[in-house]
């Protein structure tokens, strides 16, 4: 039985097929509105994330399926001291597929060892969030018509940003991708990502400002720079404006640049950018729903074939 714990659990071809199905679902949602009639998705959110949970629930409902679950650990049996493994085994008797979010890293992988149904990792602490990555890939492919041969800029908190780490991992598998990593020195990507890019001979550069690389970028992936990541207030104040995207910084950008953000945003993208046709972060939200529809259907189809 297949699960989605880490984006690299799926081959490039499998991801391609899921994105194709997602495109079809966007083009003709009515054709899929009964696709999973009678099936149940359990959303087990041991840590609240309304946005992600709603995206999963909307996806399942759009396929004609039903949802059950809980939205925080204190409303679950975990609060009574039940082990994660027992909860998963129990819930997998009540449902056909599980989307699970947990504050501990590796919890969905642990759950998959005991589950009778496919598990989708809906975020495990700072570790993985593969459906966000699928959403990002879908958005990039819909904008560019391809996933290779492009310059991808990643901007903001590259040290702790798990969405950045998995997107780099996922995009590294396509040919002709070059990364430009834009961050303050204290928030550069972790050494292991550096090592991996070098090992695979994937071109990348680390820079400190957006302006110096803006004209080269095909994709700009923005992330939040959180105050608590800095050692002192002064550094934060000194640096925060450097990593805020506004129309002035975009002046030298390509006309077909795509600006992504995993959302929620605080202030790292000025609202004055929202109406720029290059801003696709709200399309991303819609794509997230459809790619989750495609993912749920694919995992259940694979299960039927097995």
């Amino acid at each position, binding site marked *: 039985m297949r699960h989605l714990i880490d984006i690299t659990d799926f081959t490039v071809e499998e991801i391609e097929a899921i994105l194709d199905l997602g495109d079809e679902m966007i083009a003709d949602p009515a054709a899929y509105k009964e696709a999973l009639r009678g099936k149940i998705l359990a959303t087990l959110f041991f840590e609240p994330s309304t946005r992600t949970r709603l995206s999963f629930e909307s996806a399942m409902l759009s396929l004609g399926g039903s949802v059950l679950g809980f939205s925080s650990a204190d409303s679950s049996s975990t609060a009574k001291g039940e082990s994660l493994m027992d909860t998963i085994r129990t819930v997998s008797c009540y449902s056909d597929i599980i989307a699970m979010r947990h504050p501990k*890293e590796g919890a969905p992988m642990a759950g998959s060892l005991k589950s009778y149904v496919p598990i989708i990792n809906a975020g495990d602490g700072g570790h993985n969030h593969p459906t966000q990555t699928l959403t990002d890939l879908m958005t990039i492919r819909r904008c560019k018509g391809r996933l290779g041969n492009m310059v991808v800029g990643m901007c903001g908190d590259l040290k702790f940003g798990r969405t950045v780490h998995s997107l780099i991992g996922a995009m590294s598998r396509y040919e002709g991708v070059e990364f430009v990593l834009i961050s303050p020195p204290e928030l550069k990507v972790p050494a292991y990502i550096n090592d991996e890019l070098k090992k695979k001979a994937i071109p990348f550069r680390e820079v400190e400002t957006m302006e110096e690389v803006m004209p080269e970028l095909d994709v700009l992936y923005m992330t939040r720079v959180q105050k608590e990541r800095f050692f002192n207030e002064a550094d934060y104040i000194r640096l925060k404006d450097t990593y805020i995207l506004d129309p002035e910084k975009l002046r030298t950008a390509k006309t077909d640049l795509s600006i992504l953000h995993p959302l929620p945003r605080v202030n790292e993208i000025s609202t004055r950018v929202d109406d720029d046709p290059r801003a696709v972060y709200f399309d991303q939200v819609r794509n997230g729903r459809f790619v989750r529809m495609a993912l749920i259907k694919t995992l259940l189809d694979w299960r039927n074939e097995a």
Partner: protein
Amino acid sequence: MKVDSIHTGIVLDHIRAGRGMDVYRYLHLDELDCPVAYMRNVRSEAMGRKDIIKIDANINVDLDVLGYLDPGITVNIIVDGQLVEKKKLSLPEKLTNVITCKNPRCITTVEGALDQVFLLKDRARGVYRCMFCDAERKSKALR
């Protein structure tokens, strides 16, 4: 048991000097009933000094554990006073319940029933990663 010769058992040779106690601990040799000799700082032409452990019984030594600790260790199996087998060690692909994950955010820190599983990710550098959280551990030998 004479320390320099055993009749039937296992000799763990070429342990790096000072590391014999780690081997003793990881193999749980303290739980054995048979005689076990631990020799420190034995003169060695190749290594200068080395540690040796002799176990006076043909127990099943966990070669994965030894391979993780130091693939340079030699495992000699002695039967009736004869050396019958020299086992080659290498870094194992998978370690189950040999080392524990040090990442405080890892699910293994709260789910007691889970095995501690580490997978070899980079043989040249001896890097293992926790199967659950990807936290890195390096083979002790290569540290």
